């Protein structure tokens, strides 16, 4: 792995849960996850999609590892989720999408997009934890991943690694 910039390290800093609507969220993608000029929906996952927040670092930090030097980075704004607003699905189920700052030791900007249904966080199977993905309606799931695709733009094209913010 390339040297991690000192400012990328968490070093005891706490998570900061304040997100502004204009803040960008970055996610790296494999070169094969371009479908023409559009990000392919296969690149987007919910719930708990990992992203980096622009408040604490540039998109190029996602490509520092040698394995990712030919990959790209997409960006969308926090307001595209949309955060902290209940989204009524078929008029009966209340979902909410929420960005959460989840710093990692070597990646302070790391965050996740959580989904809550009627206030209960939806999580995927993880080891012995069976998760509760059954609470996530497939229709809602596909629609919101497509909404994120439509709201996204490419800030670093595959093979053009850089470190500038959009």
């Amino acid at each position: 792995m390339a040297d991690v910039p000192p400012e990328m390290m968490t070093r005891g800093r706490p998570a900061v849960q304040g997100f502004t609507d204009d803040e960008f969220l970055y996610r790296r993608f494999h070169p094969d996850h371009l479908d023409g000029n559009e990000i392919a929906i296969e690149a987007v996952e919910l719930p708990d999609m990992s992203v980096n927040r622009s408040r604490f670092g540039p998109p190029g930090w996602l490509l520092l590892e040698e394995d990712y030097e030919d990959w790209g980075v997409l960006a969308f704004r926090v307001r595209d989720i949309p955060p902290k607003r209940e989204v009524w699905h078929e008029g009966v189920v209340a979902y909410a999408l929420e960005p959460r700052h989840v710093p990692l030791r070597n990646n302070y900007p790391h965050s996740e997009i959580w989904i809550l249904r009627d206030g209960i966080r939806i999580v995927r199977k993880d080891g012995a934890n069976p998760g509760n993905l059954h609470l996530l309606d497939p229709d809602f799931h596909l629609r919101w991943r497509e909404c994120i695709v439509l709201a996204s733009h490419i800030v670093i094209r595959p093979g053009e690694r850089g470190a500038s913010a959009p």
Partner: protein
Amino acid sequence: MNTEKGAPVEELTEAAGDWPKWFARLDGFAELEEGWNGYSAPAPEPASLSAARAFLAVMRQADYPPTRLAPSAMGGVGITRRQGGRKVYVEFYNDGTAHALFSSGQAGMHTRPVPGDPDGARAFLAEMRAYLDG
């Protein structure tokens, strides 16, 4: 998708002779490992690969090829047919079920489950054609 990170992707076209390549590409997804997308994506499991293969066979019968075939960050496999400003994306999940997105971008979208039986898959394909070609 090649299992080797960053490897080039072979271009596939709609030529009838490309059918073996579509199937070979799908079979290649069995080699993927958890985290293949640079995050924590599960690898496609036999149930999703088998369901995707059955649907690909229905597409071949109808000589109606996909424009894209790729593993999904959700686990499983996605088959896309894009035409004009529209696309139909069918996602085959690792539990063996499948769901489809019909999208014309900002103009609108809808979804529906995809039947697993051959007759249901053929009926679904007819619906897909009507949406894309209509």
